[in-house]
């Protein structure tokens, strides 16, 4: 078993491992080694990373309920903030590089295309989570209120994985796996937080 203290020592390594791709891709973008269609590639990479990190936070929430894995909770906030970082970069790439700040087009695109609507909604849902992430705010709000706000991660995760699912032209296995994981975690939590307490009563 890893103690919380040992795990804290590993934390900077995890931090670097998660931030590294963003530097790599920025370098590749400038360097011209991000393939033939670099903007599309960058946007795909950032979005996929964001979604994977969102799912990682969900996994941490559920896994850390096991005593032996409790130490994991220590990195949840960091991963969550990184998820928002990558999702924001994904969205910014769409605005700045893909459509070069053509705001009227972008608004129409968000309203018209369901997969973009879903992706945008997911991004919006993440904002309150980021705002309430500091410990001070948690204390101010109280854990119960804070927790309710943070359940928004589930609709955000579902929306972004459906966004990915709809975007892919064929062979939707990868996005389907993400949706499946999210649904399983959601059911698992629902069972333990709602069903089990009721049965106990």
């Amino acid at each position, binding site marked *: 078993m890893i103690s919380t203290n040992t795990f804290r020592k590993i934390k900077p390594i995890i931090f670097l491992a998660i931030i590294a791709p963003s530097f790599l891709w920025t370098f590749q973008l400038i360097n011209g080694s991000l393939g*033939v269609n670099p903007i*599309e590639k960058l946007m795909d990479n950032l979005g996929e990373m964001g979604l994977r990190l969102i799912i990682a936070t969900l996994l941490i929430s559920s896994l850390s309920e096991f005593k032996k894995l409790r130490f994991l909770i220590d990195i949840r906030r960091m991963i969550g903030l990184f998820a928002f970082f990558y999702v924001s970069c994904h969205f910014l790439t769409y605005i700045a590089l893909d*459509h070069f700040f053509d705001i009227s087009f972008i608004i129409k695109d968000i309203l018209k295309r369901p997969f973009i609507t879903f992706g945008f909604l997911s991004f919006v849902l993440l904002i309150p989570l980021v705002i309430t992430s500091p410990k001070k705010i948690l204390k101010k709000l109280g854990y119960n209120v804070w927790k309710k706000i943070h359940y928004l991660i589930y609709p955000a995760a579902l929306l972004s994985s459906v966004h990915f699912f709809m975007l892919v032209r064929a*062979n939707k296995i990868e996005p389907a796996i993400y949706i499946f994981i999210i649904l399983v975690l959601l059911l698992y939590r629902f069972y333990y937080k709602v069903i089990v307490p009721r049965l106990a009563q």
Partner: protein
Amino acid sequence: MKILPSEITPYKNYINRRKFIKSSVAAGVFIGASTTLKASHLAEDNPFNNQLDENDKLNTFDDITTYNNFYEFGMGKTDPSENSSNFNPKPWSISLEGLINNPQVLDLEKILNKVTIEDRVYRLRCVEAWSMVIPWQGFPLSEIIKIADPLSSAKFIQLVTVFRPEEMPGQKRRLLPWPYVEGLRMDEAMHPLTILSTGLYGHDLLNQSGAPIRLVVPWKYGFKSIKSVTTIKFVDKQPDATWSMLAPSEYGFYSNVNNNVDHPRWSQSTERRIGEFKRRKTLMFNGYEEEVSYMYEGMDLKKYY
């Protein structure tokens, strides 16, 4: 398939290709660089190349051959160039079938003896809203249709990609219903802009580009330009086409490039030319409106997308 850089006609020469192609030296370069293109080669510039604008610069050989949608070799854009080395395009034959007077299996060599290879520099517009400018070598599809000699009942043609799961790893998975099929109405197939291509940049088609022979229909979205064609069937009814079977609400049979009809996933009003930063406006019929719009007069292109 590895090719030496020296085998590829230099990019610089292609920039001013309209002048370039007229010189006899240039024709020599083309034929010399290609092994199966033993066919005679048209030395004059083709009038269909003049639809290009000043700012339509040719994409590089690398861009064209490393960014491909060819699911037979995988779904990623670089999969076709990475996974196609086991594909063997030689020898090759095309089966002409259906409502024709001369059904037969034609060796590619024989076909190439009968036709004159032309240079066609076309815009290629993908439904995913990116585009390229590609210097193809090929000959009008109408040449093959003349050999087949269709009956008057033949209203459409269907083209079929080869099915070789042992050589095409993507076909081992059900990414799409194999084999890939596409179709054209007879007047579209006979249109002089519609070509069967056997090469690009003066080099035989690489496997990832649809070796040894593929369709190019420049006013339609790229997926209509079916690769590694092995069968051409003449039929009386609109034939199946892979993408429009798979998602009929997204891909129609006609699939003409149309900046006014949006795709549910991609706005078709703009496109990113590979190699450029800012998007450019998509042109009606990909800029070939003058040549092809007469075929669709009176048709509701929002309905027949």
